[in-house]
């Protein structure tokens, strides 16, 4: 299918979808707040942008997830690499990290609420926790999955310990780290929305959850569209290209 055909198909489908939605919200025998028409969602968009609420909430949510990503890169990646260097330490840490990775940050939220109260700190800790553990776990796994033969080869050629770390272990772990970052941020974005719902005073999660109490369904739908679109942009333009480039550049292909 040519580019032009794809574009035409898309426009037709989108128009059909919007038409069906408008028709359903006009004819279905349900209260108006059940299914507001697309125009109401557009109006909510214009309204919230004009009042400056939507841009602020988007920046709050994005800021929180980007902070967690930065913390994961600066702290979790080096720590995971370090723990993976020694087989004994890695064997010891593996089950523990696996356990913490599999308990989602949201499950810790009640405990964080008791410890830190309803506030920014609790949200940040829950989100950082959710992002950090998959990254840490995968960095460790990445170092351990580098075949021994490469280490031995460099040793045989007289490479120092530092050379082995720099030229074998870190590049060898990079594909796993990229995968870990993508998975961690995917879990983290969802945990952020949930934490903002339960704790928040701002952010997209808070926006859609508080709108529910007032039956502002158009605002909920708008928030959902923004949440989905932001994640897609992040995934398509940042995370996927980085992961693909890392695997293409440093991925170890076994023959």
């Amino acid at each position, binding site marked *: 299918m040519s580019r032009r055909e*794809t574009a035409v198909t898309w426009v037709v489908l989108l128009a059909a979808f919007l038409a069906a939605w408008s028709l359903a919200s006009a004819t279905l025998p349900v209260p108006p707040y059940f299914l507001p028409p697309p125009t109401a969602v557009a109006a909510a968009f214009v309204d919230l942008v004009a009042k400056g609420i939507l841009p602020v909430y988007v920046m709050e949510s994005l800021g929180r997830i980007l902070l967690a990503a930065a913390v994961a890169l600066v702290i979790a990646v080096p720590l995971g690499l370090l723990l993976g260097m020694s087989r004994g330490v890695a064997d*010891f840490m593996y089950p523990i990290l696996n356990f913490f990775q599999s308990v*989602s940050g949201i*499950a810790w939220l*009640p*405990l964080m609420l*008791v410890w830190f109260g309803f506030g920014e700190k609790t949200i940040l800790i829950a989100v950082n926790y959710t992002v950090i553990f998959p990254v840490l776990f995968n960095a460790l796994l990445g170092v351990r999955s580098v075949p021994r033969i490469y280490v031995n080869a460099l040793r045989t050629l007289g490479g120092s310990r530092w050379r082995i770390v720099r030229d074998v272990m870190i590049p060898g772990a990079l594909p796993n780290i990229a995968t870990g970052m993508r998975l961690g941020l995917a879990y983290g974005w969802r945990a952020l929305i949930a934490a903002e719902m339960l704790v928040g005073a701002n952010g997209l*999660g808070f926006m859609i959850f508080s709108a529910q109490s007032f*039956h502002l369904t158009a605002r909920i739908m708008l928030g*959902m569209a923004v949440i989905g679109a932001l994640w897609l942009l992040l995934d398509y333009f940042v995370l996927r290209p980085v992961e693909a480039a890392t695997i293409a550049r440093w991925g170890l292909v076994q023959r």
Partner: protein
Amino acid sequence: MRPWLSTARGALPFVVLVAAWAAVSGAGVMPAMFLPGPGDVARTGWEMAKDGSLWVNIGASLGRVLLGVVISVPMAVAAGIVVGLNRRLASVLEPVASFFNALSGIAWLPLAITWFGLGWASVTFILWNTIFFLVFFNTLVGVRTVPRIFEQAVRTLGGARRHVILQVLLPGAMPSIVTGLRMSIGFGWRALIAAEMIATTTGLGFLIFNAQNFHQTDAILAGIITIGILWLLTDRLVLQPLERWTIERWGLVSSS
């Protein structure tokens, strides 16, 4: 290595972890109300197990996940194959599916509550959203990666369309479907815990969130540990073996 020795080695990290926890809570850095020791948590867990409330909540959470899987997976696989048969439709619907993947889970909760109210219908709707779109997307991708030559071979030998579907596309897509299933249950389980905190009065998510209202940190920790163990058991004993077995049985190895 003898079996008991390897079990002991596997348990060692957790023994050290629990010992460290006992040391920190015993040292009195934080009041016991904030960080109860392992003994208190075990006692609370045992009491909840004895009076049956723990089992009721475990049953509610597992039952919801199971219901979500039973409803969503057949729909998702069927839809994925039907769409995958048509290249044109597939290339149009793939981005739609990835949009809903990006949205899956907890973001649906406010809308679900508006439509279905608090309760099991909302939770099931959220699980359906999480599981359906991931499995649908993976089925679609799986069907599309089956080399056309297999389809053409069956066709050449006089096979009908249903032979192509049942004997080429479905088995060929199996590894991708099962990987999608494993991922979707991982995301679904997390979404469920969050949804139970808000929308229900049973389940492990409700258990820990309700305990928070009364500052019962021992019950919260017992709940968290239960959640972790349940997921590890499901993943180790069901999902990982299923994935490995599927790849061994149906994985396409190209001998080039």
